[in-house]
């Protein structure tokens, strides 16, 4: 494992950059525990200061230091996205691949269930649930909800991939050699899925962040805990763009872009390494 990591870091440019970015994000998260201010403190510092040496990202019109807010925001948003992606893609991969491989009645039933999940429009459902929960939405509940709503769509894609893979030579070989379905799915098919999965995880993170931001903008998520979405919401609420205090918005947006780029680079590096077809290519070319 460690030799793999070391090799990746050494040889894959994108993996290296990606890891650096993610380590930096992790550093910010750790810093959040040492923040001199509570996350919901207002009037902590001077208001509406532009970025300077004292305030790296400036301050908001409510007297909060944008840099320290950002550390909390990254932490919470990544927790939400992490929960959502783990639940969503975890369920999605398993359900999609199994149903695609086993086929028949099992596939039919599972597909019906999956389709029933997919057809219900998610945003209206989330808005409804948010109003039913009447303001008691914690970040864990939010992550769980997003994950539960986001497994169906990807599972269809994995099922599609498996449908192709199922007819390949090597699958038939495995079947004839007496491998169980479960083992075939995990050992033979999963490596092919992995590049797709990694790209999909990035997309999952983005979806979770996007939904979180959308809900915050509609005022439905917990606007009192700091997250990327709530930073953007409050930035807009106090008209940062209209009043030319753009630093309040640039920090969370910039952070979300940089983090996603980090994930993307890592996933590109990993998938290049893991893709069985690319691996062969590499073995031939490099010494």
């Amino acid at each position: 494992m460690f030799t793999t990591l070391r090799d990746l870091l050494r040889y894959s440019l994108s993996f290296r950059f990606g890891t650096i970015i993610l380590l930096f994000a992790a550093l910010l998260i750790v810093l959040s525990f040492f923040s001199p201010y509570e996350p919901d403190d207002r009037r902590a510092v001077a208001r509406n200061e532009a970025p300077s040496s004292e305030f790296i990202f400036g301050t908001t019109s409510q007297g909060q230091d944008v840099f320290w807010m950002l550390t909390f925001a990254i932490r919470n948003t990544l927790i939400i996205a992490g929960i959502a992606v783990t639940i969503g893609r975890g369920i999605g991969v398993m359900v999609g691949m199994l149903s695609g491989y086993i086929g028949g009645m099992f596939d039919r039933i599972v597909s019906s269930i999956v389709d029933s999940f997919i057809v219900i429009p998610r945003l209206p459902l989330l808005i409804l649930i948010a109003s039913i929960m009447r303001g008691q939405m914690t970040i864990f509940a939010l992550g769980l909800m997003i994950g539960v709503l986001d497994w169906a769509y990807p599972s269809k894609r994995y099922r599609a991939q498996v449908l192709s893979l199922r007819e390949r030579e090597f699958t038939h070989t495995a079947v004839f050699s007496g491998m169980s379905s479960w083992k075939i799915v995990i050992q033979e098919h999963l490596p092919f899925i992995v590049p797709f999965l990694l790209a999909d995880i990035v997309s999952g993170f983005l979806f979770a962040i996007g939904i979180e931001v959308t809900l915050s903008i509609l005022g439905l998520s917990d606007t009192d805990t700091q997250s990327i979405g709530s930073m953007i919401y409050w930035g807009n609420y106090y008209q940062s763009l209209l009043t030319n205090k753009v630093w309040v918005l640039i920090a969370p947006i910039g952070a979300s872009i940089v983090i996603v780029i980090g994930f993307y680079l890592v996933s590109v590096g990993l998938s290049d390494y893991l893709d069985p077809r690319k691996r062969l290519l590499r073995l031939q070319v490099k010494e």
Partner: protein
Amino acid sequence: MTLLRTYILPRILQWVFVIFVGVSITFLIPRLSPVNPVENMIGRLTSFQSMDPEASNRMRETLTDLYGLDGSMLDQYISFWGRLLRGDLGPSFQNFPRPVNDIIGDGIWWTVGLLGTATLVSWVLGILLGSLAGYFPNSLWAQFLEKTVITIYPIPYYIVAFVMLMLFTFYIPAFPLVGGARGTPALTWDYISSVLYFGFLPAMSIILGSTAFRFIMAKALTSTEASSDYVRYAELAAVPQRKILLYYVIRNTMLPQVTDLALSLGTIFGGALITEIVFGYPGVGYVLFNAINSADYNIIMGITLLSIVGIATASLLVDMIYPFLDPRVRLR
């Protein structure tokens, strides 16, 4: 014939089942919301007067009757299906007695037009650019494009939309602030060009993000495909690269892309809520949002019904076409 029996018919039954379940859930869930549409309407009607409690009780009865909310949940459910099968989506509560069919009809063409166009354009653009970048990963412009795309892609849609709004309506006042077109619908050049004018900003905001997504997906798929044996063989055999890319590589990556396109098109009936709020575009997304907040059951049902049917049908069509697209897929 067996294909029809073992695959197509069950799949169609599945389609019916999915729609039935989806619609029933959508019937049930808004009624779980704590917002009561009758109380809401009374609140609206009396927010700046005070009304005697006897008077408001009379109103309560009248409204409950007018809205069709008397009777048990089961009664309402049955009469709902009865109405639905006659094509009647009922009256809206908030805009009583305007029928939901009218309200949806007003907005749906804007939504479908905007989202449909934006989805198609970004699909084509994304696949073209992404496949090129995947096939020629080392060229300068491919790298530049990729870096640009992954910078744009993660920006939350609301920000993209709002920044474009600020840039092109405020700092450079070039585009309108609200509406779908100028004047009344007619087949004149004036009207059609104003549709393009009013829809340009919202469409661009959607296209930016969607193209980025499509680009990334296409690039990933193409670069995997490009390392296949047959591509290596074709290159060695001096088949022109254009041919390899267009006729072989892109085709082999079409499967997941077509699936995605179909499903994306299926979802457009749900509307683009944020787009409509930011650009003041008259689609159904904003109507749906208001309906949820005021518990206007019939509008919620109507729009989500369209959405459910759209997605389920798209899914059905994709499954039907699949064997024709990929000969390797034999349906067990």
